[in-house]
């Protein structure tokens, strides 16, 4: 059995969903309540592979909300992730993906130090960040969408915002090795990490976001855009492809200009309907078929019976592992989303 640990995009969103799912005890509560709320299994999922194989999974709502980080409720935020993991393990789930901010919180706060949770000893091999599949899908989206827009990769400048993160560095690695892009621009806050990445890649230019945007034919966003950054739409290239790999996905509101094409990054479409209700809640355009690639990684690991933490730690994603998960992804009927400028993934009332 596979599992997905997810969370909602905001307190407003959480209140709406709780009401919609019929939990009035949770619906009217503020952040304090969510800081105390325990993890819950809220969905049972059935997935059929293109090969005909069927698997079953569970969706674990961690009750984490991004506002916890903004309000510096760091202990509450970290508890949500650890408790959701313990919950998944207690329910006998073999492989669980840490979706949304879950894997970022796990990494940033070194939660691998916390292995004992009440009477559960966490077995980290039962969890995956799903980042290998996400990075693979983003790379496929770059290649395919560039083709659709008539951007020739050998003439293209590609900027990766969040280049030194786990997904960002894998995308850089793949683009360098597997394509002949003209130039790679690396945007990240930590200069030391950028230098290490440049050395590994043997190419790439460290650059500030404001300088990179006017030069780029393609921008891959795996870090959210810092608040207060002003972009002059006239300065952007035409056509310009933006791959929005953040969560929630709202870049298309920011870059709603003629000739600027925003694609929801790290999203896959399955060739068959998935029996679940949770993707409606995060407002996928086609909730029965579209999902986050990190979630799909847990499904793939279950299909393949690769019960291991396939994606784990920081900057461990190799080209071989991307190939491996990529082959599995195609075999079981997943493909990268290619709807340019589709509606944003944000909370709305329903």
């Amino acid at each position, binding site marked *: 059995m596979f599992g997905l640990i997810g969370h909602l995009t905001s307190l407003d969103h959480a209140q709406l969903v709780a009401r919609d799912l*019929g*939990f009035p*005890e*949770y619906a*009217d*509560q503020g952040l*304090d*309540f969510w*800081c*105390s*709320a*325990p*993890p*819950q*299994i*809220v969905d049972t999922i059935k997935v059929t592979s293109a090969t005909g194989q069927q698997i079953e999974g569970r969706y674990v709502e961690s009750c984490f909300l991004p506002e916890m*980080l903004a309000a*510096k*409720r*760091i*202990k*509450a935020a*970290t*508890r949500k992730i650890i*408790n959701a993991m313990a*919950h998944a393990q*207690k329910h006998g789930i073999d492989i669980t993906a840490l979706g949304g901010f879950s894997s970022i919180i796990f990494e*940033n*706060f*070194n939660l691998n*130090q*916390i292995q004992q949770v*009440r*009477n559960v000893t966490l077995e980290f091999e039962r969890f995956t960040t799903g980042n290998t599949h996400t990075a693979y899908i983003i790379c496929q989206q770059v290649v395919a969408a560039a083709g659709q827009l008539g951007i020739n990769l050998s003439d293209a400048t590609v900027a990766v915002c969040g280049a030194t993160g786990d997904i960002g560095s894998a995308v850089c690695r793949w683009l360098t090795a597997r394509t002949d892009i003209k130039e790679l621009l690396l945007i990240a806050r930590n200069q030391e990490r950028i230098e290490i990445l440049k050395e590994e890649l043997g190419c790439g230019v460290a650059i500030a976001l404001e300088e990179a945007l006017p030069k780029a034919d393609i921008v891959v966003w795996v870090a959210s855009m810092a608040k207060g950054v002003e972009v002059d739409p006239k300065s952007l290239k035409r056509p310009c492809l933006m791959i929005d790999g953040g969560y929630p996905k709202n870049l298309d509101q920011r870059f709603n200009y003629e000739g600027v094409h925003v694609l929801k990054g790290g999203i896959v479409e399955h060739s068959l309907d998935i029996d679940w209700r949770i993707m409606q809640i995060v407002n996928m355009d086609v909730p029965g078929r579209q999902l986050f690639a990190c979630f799909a990684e847990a499904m793939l690991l279950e299909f393949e019976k690769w019960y291991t933490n396939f994606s784990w730690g920081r900057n461990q994603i190799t080209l071989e592992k991307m190939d491996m998960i990529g082959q599995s992804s195609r075999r079981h009927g997943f493909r990268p989303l290619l709807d340019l400028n589709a509606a944003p993934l944000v909370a709305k009332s329903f």
Partner: protein
Amino acid sequence: MQQLETTSTFDYQSEHYKDAYSRINAIVIEGEQEAYDNYRKLAESLPDSKDDLLRLAKMESRHMKGFQACGKNLSVTPDMAFAAKFFSQLHENFQRAWGEGKIVTCLLIQSLIIETFAISAYNIYIPVADDFARKITEGVVKDEYSHLNFGEEWLKANFESAKAELQEANRQNLPIIWAMLNQVADDARVLGMEKDALVEDFMITYGEALANIGFSSRDVMRLSAQGLAAI
């Protein structure tokens, strides 16, 4: 991003710490005493489980002595009058239920609510405890899981007949726990125990117990959050 503090340092000998400890320590001692009395009463009502219950009662009495030693170790005199008052409502509800022969209510109060309250408090306390108290509490928390398990197994075996009474007993008693937590939130914070962590741990362990007994996940969410909104 900010860093997570995984280790904390406390001045266990400061008057501020010892003042808060005098009430928290008293609650723990009183809680173990109540548990001892309650299991002995239950042993009278459940002859089939008499030996098990007397064994549990004995363990609770040993725990109480352990926690008394923790107070002595810090030269703290536990405020037992405060603790007796703190438990009075749950104590009265247990006595009344026992008098009326409502064993399901008694088990919910002692084996589920009080045991879960103890387990969550001990789990949150262990990382911030002084060395002496940490060792004692680590030993105790293992025992408390087996006590919770006793109630779970009995109620699971009698789930269909117990269900309605459990829901009613939950409605009456769980809000008392939230009020009790509120009453000691400030003292607990001095000891390094955050209220939201205590509530969360309680809801997780209590919810797991309700699910093991036979309640659906929807029922578990509703029952374990009962009355929480009011605090």
